[in-house]
């Protein structure tokens, strides 16, 4: 059984609301966060079929400003910040020189001399120091996590829900674009991004306004059956969509090429930290690679479980769970690159017993495109 929550954990501005609404709170990387409200599976389905609301205020924000801002962002991240247009966002990686991940991040171009980074909660101080230490061009790097609460509204009815409260036409914001305006008459950055595999928005608001905004979104979504969701559903949703989770699929010993994230690396742009290591790895060939699997036997391959090929230890599971949308037990694992293709029979060691599984194409779930 999980341990009781200790008192030294950090809390978001929505903490009191979660408790009053009966959420089950857990320690998530030093933060006391809701893991579920009504029930993980119910919340998962609400996001796939209607709309769900997540408090992700534990995520960190870093602002980079000044004439040299773009140069610094391009130097510390793998994707090409220089190719962003104002109002556009991109998924990117912060790497060490050896090519392993410091973190995975979202880069938003607010203006020519203003970039807004959303980073993982447990990495935010480390990311800030990493960027500051790499700042040889005199850009202004500001740790801004205390200035923002972040709320994710996700699901096919997210737009209709949030539109009732938003000052801008949300349908005019394309996927991975954002606009500044107001939600419930409070300043808000509205980004059409998410971590669920559904359409939706992530909004950045003033912490003091966030409880009121949270309640107004719940009210706005009531007619659609909106549900407040915890981190449990967030995890099953992102896994079905095969989105990486820091500490699982990616960490300091894993490169983007191994993690099947080559698309977020632009080797043809200007110099960036980790580039040389990736170029070398590409030349020599990637030795291990992330691949999806489905359990065939009875059991669930969980994070850290050993994976065997023909009885021989060959890799490990990074994430695994029942997939509520698919009614299957799915997971991601690292295997030798030569074997990391769909259709390979594997065995996952579930509590010391080999259980049959098979590698499959990913993502496991892809939403039907509308319009």
């Amino acid at each position, binding site marked *: 059984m999980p341990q009781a929550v200790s008192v030294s954990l950090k809390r978001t501005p929505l903490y009191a609301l979660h408790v009053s609404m009966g959420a089950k709170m857990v320690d998530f990387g030093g933060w006391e966060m809701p893991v579920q409200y009504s029930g*993980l599976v119910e919340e998962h389905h609400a996001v796939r079929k209607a709309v769900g609301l997540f408090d992700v205020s534990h995520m960190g924000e870093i602002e980079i400003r000044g004439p040299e801002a773009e140069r610094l962002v391009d130097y510390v991240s793998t994707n090409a910040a220089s190719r962003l247009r104002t109002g556009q966002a991109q998924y990117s990686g912060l790497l060490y020189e050896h090519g392993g991940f410091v973190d995975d991040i979202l880069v938003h171009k607010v203006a020519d001399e203003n970039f807004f980074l959303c980073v993982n909660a447990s990495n935010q101080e480390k990311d800030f120091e990493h960027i500051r230490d790499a700042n040889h061009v005199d850009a202004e790097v500001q740790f801004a996590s205390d200035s923002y609460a972040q709320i994710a509204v996700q699901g096919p009815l997210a737009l209709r829900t949030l539109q009732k409260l938003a000052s801008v036409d949300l349908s005019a914001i394309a996927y991975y674009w954002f606009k500044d305006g107001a939600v419930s008459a409070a300043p808000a950055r509205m980004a059409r991004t998410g971590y669920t595999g559904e359409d939706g928005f992530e909004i950045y608001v003033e912490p003091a306004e966030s409880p009121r905004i949270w309640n107004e979104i719940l009210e706005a979504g009531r007619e659609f059956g909106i549900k407040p969701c915890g981190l449990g559903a967030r995890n099953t949703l992102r896994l079905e969509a095969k989105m990486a989770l820091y500490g699982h699929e990616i960490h300091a010993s894993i490169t983007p090429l191994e993690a099947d994230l080559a698309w977020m690396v632009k080797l043809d742009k200007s110099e960036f930290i980790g580039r040389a290591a990736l170029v070398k790895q590409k030349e020599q060939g990637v030795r291990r690679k992330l691949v999806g699997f489905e359990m065939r036997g009875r059991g669930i391959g969980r994070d850290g479980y050993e994976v065997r090929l023909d009885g021989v230890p060959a890799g490990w599971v990074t994430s695994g769970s029942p997939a509520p949308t698919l009614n299957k037990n799915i997971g991601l694992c690292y295997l030798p690159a030569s074997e990391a293709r769909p259709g390979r029979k594997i065995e996952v060691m579930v509590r010391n017993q080999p259980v049959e599984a098979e590698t499959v194409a990913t993502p496991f779930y892809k939403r039907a495109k509308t319009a």
Partner: protein
Amino acid sequence: MTYPEELRYTKEHEWVLAEGDVGTVGITWHAQKELGDIVYVDLPKPGTRVEQGKSLGSVESVKAVSDIYSPVSGEVIETNETLSQSPEKLNEDPHGAAWLVKIRMSAPDEMKGLLAAAAYQTYVGAET
């Protein structure tokens, strides 16, 4: 939640109901609530000898796997077959229809060391 008076409880959130030398064992309402949506239940085969405080099997929810510890020592004489087909019953009726195993107790005195309903209730605190 009101915990049934006739059961005895462990701090690991199992319960046992003694009838003669046979103890029926399950997990508590608190345990199923902590676990969330249960998807697998692994239980020992009849004939398996189990010891108090040692692993009796495991319960797996969407989120995680948890060990079940035997509240008493003895021999497993029956397992609840319905749970292999319908593990979600553990979320619905953990103190009743979703019992896990019946154990022929080798040391029924072990029951004396378990918690009564009121003590267990206090241990888990107020619940909705």
